[in-house]
């Protein structure tokens, strides 16, 4: 009996010790192995395998000649996932993100590798691409010595355009109103949508607009005020968007929206915007603050066959006309972990992506998934939209792509169905409308010094409180603005303002030397 107890005890001891130590050591990496982060959106159909292993991954290994492995990272939890991975030393060799701020945060933590030398030494296609697109340059440099810590390709036009305001044209026609273009007209339309029963149900069951997620950012753009991260420059003076005097009108908008019932008060608990979208598709709201893709148009049309939409590219205020949000030129920022074992292989993979890999990953193969339109040379889908959804996941492997966008693509690719044709036309119009107004961006990126972030931790909650009070009508917009000013000064705003001014003065000459502000309309004409 004693023997058995002793044996059990010893076995348990050994097992626990071994497993503890084994957990600490990873597998020895093969010489040419490269691990690449890929966004996990749960889009891989089960019969296609997993995001880590499927026929496309095999194809990529074969074509690029690099021993690739993929590490899925949930699309909306990049920081929550990668920060602990970096701390534990298990982060992938190659990471990528759409957000420059996230990459800057990793850079500040010292976990990224400078790329200039490796690009110079190993790269062919990517090096050429970066040389041909100097617009990207200021966005890829980080830190005081301005080394390149990331690479990127230019966004095609359809991803440069982002937010857009939509209005129910049939409601406007019903009430005899024009498409609003100014703040005054917008307010008049909003009032009419709430009080004049535009959906003809006999009750006042409508809201002027709903939030498809970007409402707050769009009001920031409309008034050029209120954003928690944007800084503006007037006459070489840089100032935070929450200290501008335009803030008064920004606050007034929120106050009116609540006071006059333009917006559903339950937006505040509707954090996934389900209820807002429900109001929209059931025809209980006249405007939609969303993206440039027509919002839930097929559902809306199914509920209300008369529904017609018009996109609005900007609402002018007395402070001027500012377009809705447009992305900066770089698409995905691709960076290497600071101790990446095989930078050469990683560069080889990126070169292959830029060269040819991206095209098949986006469009599939010619003759199978797509054909080439003879007149324009544009790839056109040969498969149904359901089959396309089945292949959507391959797009997330494409961290670099020198893609161009052609607006004809919508019409050429649309199935021969009146609704689909109408939708394609609407998408084309919406994109043109979006890029017809320039989104004001005075610096290529936002400042991110640690003192500033510490200040934001104190200031932002206070600002949010004030904004909430003014929205509820407990403060006048003017009083709220004075309160914001005094809180800004009290919490040390002037000190960080001076630091940001220094940062601006130092970088301004570099930024001025490249044309980082691209003219979107000129891209359309190319």
């Amino acid at each position: 009996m004693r023997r058995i107890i002793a044996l059990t005890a010893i076995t348990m001891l050994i097992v626990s010790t071994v497993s503890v130590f084994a957990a600490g050591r990873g597998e020895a990496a093969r010489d040419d192995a490269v691990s690449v982060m890929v966004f996990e959106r749960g889009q891989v159909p089960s019969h296609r395998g997993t995001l880590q292993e499927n026929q496309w991954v095999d194809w990529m290994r074969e074509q690029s000649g690099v021993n690739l492995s993929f590490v899925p990272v949930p699309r909306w939890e990049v920081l929550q996932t990668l920060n602990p991975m970096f701390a534990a030393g298990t982060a992938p060799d190659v990471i990528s993100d759409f957000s420059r701020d996230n990459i800057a945060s990793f850079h500040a933590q010292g976990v990224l590798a400078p790329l200039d030398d490796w690009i110079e030494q190993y790269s062919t296609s990517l090096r050429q691409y970066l040389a041909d697109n100097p617009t990207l340059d200021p966005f890829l440099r980080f830190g005081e010595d301005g080394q390149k810590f990331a690479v990127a390709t230019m966004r095609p036009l359809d991803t440069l355009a982002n937010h857009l305001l939509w209005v129910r044209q049939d409601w406007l026609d019903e009430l005899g109103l024009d498409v609003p273009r100014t703040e005054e007209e917008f307010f008049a339309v909003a009032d009419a949508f709430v009080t004049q029963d535009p959906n003809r149900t006999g009750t006042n069951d409508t809201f002027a607009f709903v939030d498809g997620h970007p409402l707050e950012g769009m009001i920031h753009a409309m008034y050029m005020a209120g954003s928690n991260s944007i800084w503006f420059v007037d006459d070489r003076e840089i100032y935070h968007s929450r200290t501008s005097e335009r803030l008064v009108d920004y606050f007034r908008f929120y106050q009116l929206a609540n006071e006059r019932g333009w917006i559903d008060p339950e937006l505040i608990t509707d954090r996934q915007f389900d209820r807002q979208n429900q109001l929209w598709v059931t025809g209980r709201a006249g405007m939609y603050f969303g993206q440039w893709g027509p919002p839930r148009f097929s559902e809306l049309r199914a509920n209300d066959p008369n529904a017609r939409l018009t996109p609005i590219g900007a609402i002018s205020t007395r402070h001027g006309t500012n377009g809705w949000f447009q992305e900066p030129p770089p698409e995905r920022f691709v960076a290497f972990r600071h101790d990446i074992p095989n930078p050469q292989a990683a560069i080889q993979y990126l070169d292959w992506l830029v060269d040819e890999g991206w095209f098949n990953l986006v469009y599939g193969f010619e003759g199978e998934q797509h054909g080439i339109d003879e007149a324009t040379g544009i790839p056109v889908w040969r498969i149904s939209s359901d089959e396309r959804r089945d292949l959507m996941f391959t797009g997330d492997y494409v961290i670099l792509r020198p893609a161009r966008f052609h607006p004809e693509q919508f019409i050429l690719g649309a199935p021969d169905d009146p609704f689909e044709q109408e939708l394609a036309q609407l998408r084309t119009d919406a994109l043109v409308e979006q890029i017809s107004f320039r989104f004001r961006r005075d610096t290529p990126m936002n400042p991110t010094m640690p003192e500033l972030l510490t200040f934001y931790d104190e200031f932002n909650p206070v600002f949010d409180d004030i904004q909430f009070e003014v929205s509820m009508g407990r403060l006048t917009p003017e009083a709220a603005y004075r309160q914001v000013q005094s809180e800004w000064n009290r919490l040390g705003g002037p000190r960080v303002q001076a630091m940001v001014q220094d940062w601006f003065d130092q970088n301004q000459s570099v930024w001025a030397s490249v044309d980082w502000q691209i003219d979107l309309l000129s891209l359309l004409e190319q």
Partner: protein
Amino acid sequence: MSTRSGELNTVIIDGAPVLRPRKLPLKTRLYRDRYLLMLLLPVLVFYVIFRYVPMYGLVIAFKDFRLVDGILGSQWAGLTHIERMFRSEHFFRIVRNTVLLNVYQLLFQFPAPIVLAILINEMRSKTLKRGVQSLLYVPHFISWVVMGGIIITILSPSTGIVNRILTQNFGIRPIFFLADRTWWVIVFIFSGIWKSAGWGTILYLAAITNIDPQLYEAAIIDGAGKFRQIWHITLPGLSTTIGILLILNVGGFMEVNFEQIFILQNQAVMRVADVIPTFVYRAGLLGAQFSYTTAVGFFQSIVGLILIWSTNRIIKALGGSGLF
């Protein structure tokens, strides 16, 4: 076991000689119990590796931690993070909210399972009792994400069932419970009770079954009614369990269930709903301010330790049996 007789010693207790086992030298005892100790070893290893070693990570509260330098390699920062913490207005707000929500929880959520356990215990029908118990356990198994969705839906001012009843039957104007700072706190506490009270009855019910039935019989003979029985027998019988659970509860005093509060909070109530865990999540995991948020977490643990220790002392001073 021939040595047994040699292990007895004579000691004087209360003026009378008593035979007591003689204390053997440590070495002998270790050798004698070697197999039992070996069985204990994996547990000790677990605690050392997963509960004590990670504590060295606390030093980053006194360093400027960067991911690349690691815990040991980062530069020392002295007390800058602690200073920033105590100078920060926002810090006091999150501490105040954390403390207040916990006081409310202690006042309302802690006694709920006790009351519930006594009520269940007094039920006559065995079948009904079991059914009620099972039903009460259900919310424990629903995740907060789902619970949050249910709560937001039923409390909606336009479509929620609660407001419909209030409007139609009592003529009260709809209340937006989750956007009102007072109501939100009440909803927060009640949702906690809803989810945990049923499950919490398990320990109390187990303690009640341990109470000697003869006590109840004697009480009935003496003419005690149900309430007298509960007051003089059930509650005193539960006092030890209540005491221990109270200590454990107070130990977690500075913690708030992250999932619960993260799912229920919104912009309108941040003034009362922003607490230490949600701040640590925002500033630490999202904002990469690892050192500062570690300092905040450290503060939280120290307060928790002080509270658990003092509650234990108070309970002992009141004549109860403490935890340690």
